């Protein structure tokens, strides 16, 4: 079994998703069955094969390095759950 209780807690923590006990149990089961299933990729010989990360054949286009001030902070803040004086507001970090 690749995923145990410690591993699922670690991944959940890295993902910033709080899991309750029942959920952890379910995900341990799901993730193990998915990881067992993808294991079949080990049958494939990939020696000297380049990993494919970008399917697009085009070379990344360059643009001119000019600043572009859209002055859109108000627009950007429009959807914020909490804001204060032109900033996103979050719970206090420093006591």
């Amino acid at each position, binding site marked *: 079994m690749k995923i145990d209780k410690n591993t699922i807690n670690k991944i959940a923590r890295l993902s910033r*998703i709080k899991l309750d006990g029942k959920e952890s149990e379910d995900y341990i089961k799901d993730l193990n069955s998915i*990881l067992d299933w993808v294991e079949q990729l080990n049958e494939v010989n990939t020696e000297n094969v380049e990993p494919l990360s970008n399917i697009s054949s*085009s070379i990344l286009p360059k*643009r001119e390095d000019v600043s572009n001030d859209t002055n859109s902070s108000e627009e950007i803040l429009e959807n914020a759950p909490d804001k204060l004086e032109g900033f996103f507001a979050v719970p206090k970090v420093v006591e």
Partner: protein
Amino acid sequence: MPKSSLKQTLKDLETKKISIRELNQDYLKRIKENENLNVFIHFSEENVLKQIDNLENNNSEKKLKGIPIAIKDLFCTKNMPTTAASKILENFHPTYESFVTQKLLDEGSIFVGKTNLDEFAMGSATNTSFFGNTINPLSKENEPLAPGGSSGGSAAAVAADLCLGATGTDTGGSIRQPASFCGVVGIKPTYGLCSRWGIAAFASSLDQAGIFSHNVEDASILLKSIAGFDQRDSTSAKVDIPNYFENLDDDLNGKTVGIPKEYSIDGTPMEISQIWEDAIKVLEKKGVKIKNISLPHTKYALPTYYIIAPAEASSNLARYDGVKYGFRSEEIDSLDEMYENTRAQGFGREVKRRILIGTYVLSAGYYDAYYLKAQKVRKLIADDFNKAFKECDFIVTPTAPSAAFPLNEKQNDPIKMYLNDVFTVPASLAGLPGISIPFGKDKNNLPLGIQILGKHFDEQQVFNAAVSLERSYE
């Protein structure tokens, strides 16, 4: 009453046989009559009427002026909220317009509403949406069927004739599979043909926008409208977009079709093997040379996809943290608590499952064994296609391994659900264009789909083969 095509409607509008208002009121009426299907996450009659008013006061000529289009609720739209079918984006009002929807607006189309989908496009049945299931319009009473997914709302909107076309996105089959389940046409173009700008990201190396329509001609008109280069998407391609519709040519004489032997898989229902054979026979009669080809790494496509897509999703969905937009949990004693509770309460089960698996395969110590390995197998899968296309002009396969299944089937076993994409995922990994067209029915009279795949940016060949098969079937 037969459904009117986009092509015919454009003529009727031009000759003033029907007005923009009359046309759209007809669609509004049907939308309201079909509310039980739960096709739309957002629908506002007032909004549609406002769009009609604006167009009536606009004298400029536009290619799609007044045409009712449904938009998958993954595309950011300024005049309607955008949720990605997730609680975490409930009440999100984009302040900008996606590239694809802007193109459709520029051409004068009317957005009738935002369609339902699997949460963040993760699913194959439109049953992971925070806003409930969409029901396949072809369901019999008391036997609700899934419309497929993730773009199930858009496929259902076209099938129920609630619009003349709809946008979708396809990451591993999310346009082609629901098109097959709902008996409509769905095309996923080449990766890079349509800008991804303003589409809520799922797996960026795979996501691609596309079109649902009543027939192939309509799809060829609409795809031209949403394609094009955009510097805000670094993978958007600088290619000329042909006039697919004017160039449509159903004469396939002398072409070669590839039939991949690896797509004959155990457990595929007879009826599906049968329509595949029927399609091949039709092509043969049209003077198409049949070439048996091999795509040897096909069986590894699904496991490859289910490493790459969740890995990219776990990274893309990190942005939903309760700070900048969308839902924020009430339980926020500290910043970390806020993140963890917001994401725990804001995401549904399938999305969390994929974030967790994606985080695992990218985590220290496992990256090479999973993610890097999958990228290498992806290369082999893409190479298989490149080799095959040296010997053929297009490839024909079934679209999905089944017809539409009952709404609540396959919910508990993720791998069983993932197998829906067995015929669509390989082309997604290779970035190839693919279309699904209705072709035959199963014993319950439900539609089945045939998939046609083409070379990169050879959408024209895909459309030509599709229109040829469609015309022979009608």
